């Protein structure tokens, strides 16, 4: 009887190990999961939609009503352990009021497979590269159902800011910046204060801060009274805002 129980236990153990298809536990995993949380700020403050509580570099009081942008094609650089470039991926970051999705809808987390190793820099792109824009497929975050495309063949808005501001006259008016165009696909590189270590089979978490106020600040200060909007790929105003991307992102809270 004891032997039977022992046999049963041994079989049970075997089944437990095999049942979920994870049977190579003694081999080191070549990759780990990296979970990136994007924290969207406005001049260091939390992003709250529809509240006229922010002031930009030009002195305009403003609110944010819709905020979306694409981050894509991440790279991980390491002097000591080598580089890793995970396969091309496209992530739409959204903080929007979307009645169809039950009101406030936030999608601010990116999860990807990264090779085990140690990295001192992370790089990514704002926007969608020409290759994918021209050839698709246009699925998931790239589906035009997200209202980030001007048509269904890859004419993407890379970054969409919509808000209200107080005009010099005191009236409220809208500030609308839909940024697009091949020259606005830009690479951002950030240094880690301490190496990012990815251990095989484990999940590592990091935070990237995106400050919306920087979009209107440096090197091009935007006065909403004078330049209240653009919705055209490659327009001069879109290009000016594109130059401000680079200062928007950081790995530490300001």
């Amino acid at each position, binding site marked *: 009887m004891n032997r039977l129980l022992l046999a049963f236990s041994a079989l049970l153990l075997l089944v437990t190990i095999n049942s979920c298809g994870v049977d190579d536990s003694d081999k080191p995993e070549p990759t780990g999961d990296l979970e990136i949380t994007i924290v969207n700020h406005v001049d260091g403050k939390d992003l709250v939609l529809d509240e006229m509580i922010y002031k930009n570099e030009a002195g305009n009081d403003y609110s944010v009503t819709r905020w979306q942008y694409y981050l894509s094609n991440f790279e991980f650089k390491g002097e000591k352990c080598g580089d890793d470039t995970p396969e091309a991926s496209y992530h739409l970051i959204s903080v929007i009021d979307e009645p169809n999705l039950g009101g406030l809808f936030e999608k601010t987390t990116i999860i990807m497979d990264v090779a085990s190793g140690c990295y001192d820099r992370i790089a990514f792109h704002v926007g969608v590269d020409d290759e994918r824009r021209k050839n698709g497929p*246009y699925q998931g975050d790239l589906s035009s159902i997200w209202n980030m495309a001007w048509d269904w063949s890859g004419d993407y808005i890379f970054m969409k800011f919509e808000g209200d501001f107080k005009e010099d006259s005191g009236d409220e008016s809208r500030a609308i910046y839909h940024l697009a165009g091949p020259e606005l696909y830009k690479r951002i590189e950030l240094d880690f204060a301490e190496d990012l270590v990815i251990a095989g089979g484990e999940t590592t978490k990091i935070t990237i801060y995106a400050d919306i106020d920087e979009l209107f600040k440096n090197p091009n200060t935007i006065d909403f009274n004078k330049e209240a909007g653009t919705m055209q790929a490659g327009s001069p105003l879109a290009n000016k805002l594109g130059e401000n991307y680079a200062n928007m992102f950081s790995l530490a809270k300001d």
Partner: protein
Amino acid sequence: MKNLTTITALFLFTCFLLVSSCDGDGGDDDPKKDTTVYDYELTQAFKDIDPVFDNQPEDNVATNEGVELGRHLFYDPRLSKNNTISCASCHKQEMAFTDGERFSLGFNGERTARNSMAIANMRWHGLFFWDGRAPTLEEQVLMPIQDPVEMGMTLEEVEDKLKDIDIYPDMFESAFGSKEITSDRVSKALSQFVRSIMSQGSKYDQIYGLPDSRIKNIFTDEEYLGFTLFKTHIDPDYGAGINKPGTANRGANCGDCHHTALLTNNLFTSNGLDSITKDEGYGPISGKEKYDGTFKTPTLRNIELTAPYMHDGRFQTLEEVLDHYDQHVQDHPNLDIQIAEAGNIYPGRLDLTNKEKNAIIAFLKTLTDYDLIENPKYSNPFDE
């Protein structure tokens, strides 16, 4: 030996549990016994839509039996107080599930407050009705039945009435496993049928997602010009002076709001019909001022068949609709920003030529889906 049998049985049962626990599907949405999951036969364009927008709930996955019951309920005038009005009275298949009326006729001769909306591809729509007052399709389908103008019933009356109609107890049993008739089951079956109504067989569906070079081979020159204008967004601030008639860089901005395989952005916006609105639409429903005077962007699928147009059916023809967007957009405080800020001339006027307007209408007619209006699976079962 008995012990061995017991242990073997225990072992096998444990294995079963372990294997079951890893299949990842949860198990709650398994189709009921003896039902067959309904095949939507989706084209790639619909498969590509981000699943976050799919509104089919796990506890009401469409089955052939549920859809068939729903079709009977949809076409049955006995769901109204005096047996005169069915869902299909205002949603006629031959008119892409609209009724051709400005305001629809209810069971006692009164008229509804708004225009009957087309039904197609509702599985990816968010809020329902022009004013978005129904958050789910399951809730939406019961509202016209209880509306005092439309069908004038209570849910108890519906349940009692259906119990006494010979075909229904058996059909409820096929769909839901027992003969019990509840308003929840009525809602589920009607939703299943409404979701099953797919429009994906138009000429537009043939070109969807193709490169322009191949679209040119399928569309006529006029349709292709209309398609190009339809999807091209023009910013007059940037384009001033270069968007004149006859130049290549012209647009009508339609695709800003009417896009994807759904041909709607599913948002609530003002399209500038009036500068001062009496019907505030989604505003009071949402409780937000920014939505006052806004309505759900309707799909343009089968638009040729769904006149009159707008939430109040004020336009009889597509020509009138285009004239509105071309010259007569009113400056409502919540006017959609993409209409306000975009046009071939500043401020925000399209100024299309007659040739361009005709081309856009030719393109709009490529959205007509003859399979939708002829397919027997969406037709009246009581006529068979």
